[in-house]
């Protein structure tokens, strides 16, 4: 049913976003303080790119700097900075997976780590079974059209035992398939469907990956940045609602 929805990423048609130059420039800004025991961290090609033109403070224009996910705004003196997330768990994971674990930082007291997408199911399993992150709060995604790996997929996990919340991220390109977490947390079922619905990210191993909020035949994935705010699937509207346009 949802086959036709997986279209190649259309060229950005909405408002032009971000500075045109070097959208996918590799990281030049050293990501804050990596664990010394993690030699490969900075060489990870999937490593989170710091903003190539680090968020200009004058960013009153609607443009978003590409790769804005990295919480390292050096130009913002008053703003809190992301610091390395020091914990036993991270050490252990890094020791175990090496370069698979990218950045692990704390921003505003909230921890997150970036994981290579190939490691996702394993890491999530480990996090659930060994580190007691037994509650998957949310699964969501971010879209950075300028980046080569366009999407961040984010798992927000919570541990009842530690009363701690972490975020696990992975970076994927458009069309790349992420392993599903349904086997790990059943709650991922609808959350992944929503991510698929909104971003077009497919999850491998999902039992019933189809649209959840939008109607089945809808074309396009609204939360992609290139999907305009008033854009709609006119064809669908005409066929199913019998009106010219929904606007």
């Amino acid at each position: 049913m949802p086959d036709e929805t997986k279209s190649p990423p259309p060229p950005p048609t909405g408002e032009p976003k971000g500075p045109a130059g070097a959208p996918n420039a590799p990281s030049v800004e050293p990501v804050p303080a990596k664990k010394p025991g993690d030699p490969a961290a900075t060489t990870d090609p999937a490593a989170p790119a710091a903003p190539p033109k680090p968020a200009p403070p004058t960013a009153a224009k609607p443009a978003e700097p590409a790769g804005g996910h990295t919480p390292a705004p050096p130009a913002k003196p008053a703003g809190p900075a992301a610091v390395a997330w020091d914990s036993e768990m991270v050490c252990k994971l890094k020791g175990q997976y090496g370069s698979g674990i990218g950045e692990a930082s704390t921003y505003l007291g909230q921890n997150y780590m970036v994981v290579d997408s190939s490691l996702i199911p394993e890491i999530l399993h480990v996090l659930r079974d060994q580190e007691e992150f037994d509650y998957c709060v949310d699964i969501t995604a971010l879209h950075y059209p300028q980046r080569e790996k366009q999407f961040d997929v984010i798992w927000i996990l919570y541990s009842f035992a530690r009363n701690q919340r972490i975020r696990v991220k992975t970076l994927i390109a458009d069309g790349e398939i992420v392993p599903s977490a349904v086997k790990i947390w059943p709650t991922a079922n609808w959350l992944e469907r929503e991510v698929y619905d909104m971003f077009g990210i497919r999850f491998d191993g999902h039992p019933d990956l189809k649209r959840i909020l939008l109607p089945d035949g809808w074309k396009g994935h609204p939360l992609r940045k290139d999907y305009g705010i008033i854009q709609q699937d006119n064809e669908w509207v005409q066929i199913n609602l019998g009106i010219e346009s929904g606007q």
Partner: protein
Amino acid sequence: MADATKNVSHLELGDTDKTFLDSNELIINMGPQHPATHGVLRVILRLDGEKVLGTECVIGYLHRGVEKIAENRTYAMFNPYVDRMDYVAAVSNGLGYCEAVEKLLNLEAPPRANYIRVILTELNRLASHMLWLGTHALDIGAITPLFYTFRDREEILKIFEKYCGARLTTHAFRIGGCLYETYEGFEQDVTKFLKFVTPKIDEYEELLTTNRIWVERTRNVGMLSAKDCIALGVTGPVLRASGVKWDLRKAQPYAAYPDFEFEIPTGQNGDTYDRYLVRMQEMRQSLRIIEQAVGKIPEGPIMAKVPKVIKPPVGEIYHSIEAPKGELGYFIVSDGSTQPYRVRVRPPSFVNLQALEQMVRGQLVADVIAVIGTLDIVLGEVDR
């Protein structure tokens, strides 16, 4: 929408034995316009006689693209939109959003604002639970509690109206605190309301708690063990009714909650009856919090120093509060501009609704109604 049979082919069926005439498995389409689906929820039921073999929820009829809208509004402009998600607990939505943005801005609301926020949010929790009780009881066939709860909820809405001019979608809070100072006589109104409503909650309980039919209809219906709850990500009263003593107000306190004493009511069996009891207890605890809060609202400003143009630094934040329905989280990503790069809402109703399948499989049609009621979903929040 695809027709019912087509959708049902996707139902994953654990139970393959067919006890009735093989060819006559009944597929019933409940909703989207059905008196007991609390909005435009469509549940496709595969029935064996009265026994539910499988369900599939079709949602999205109320999808308004709130998250997309957020990306095209400034932080302050988006604030009223969150009220439209869980419209029976608009104040809680606003609180979560404002606190998330405040965290992103790395500032804190002044204590007075926090106290006002707690009072209004707890009042709103009461209102939400009252509405839940009325409709839930109505679904199970007791029509009278609905009118009682609506009568009393009206008093809460009156306080909201006096405070901010709106009854339902209040937009009560602003990023950085509250816009409105409490009106003259706010404390008295709230105290009067507390006095008025305490016996009323007993009145509801009198009608239902020991009512044999009520107990029979809700005991051992829609069971959800603590393990299942956590696996399914179910939060709020539903989780607590399964015996997990977890409440974000205690676990990760926010606003002024650390200042107050209150209990986290829990159940043991995780059935519909326990969820009912937990929510009734929660209403009492809310009253307790309000009582403590209203007596000692500190003096001071109600608004923190917030820049005229809200422009959080680049970064991302996840902040969640204990909404009446469960954990309501906001994941906000800022790119340093005036508009959020992305706002993700973690809606408790959406995640809780997912548990429906597990809760009703193997039970009877009538239980589906009871379970939908007990999950306390608001479709505005499910669909966003």
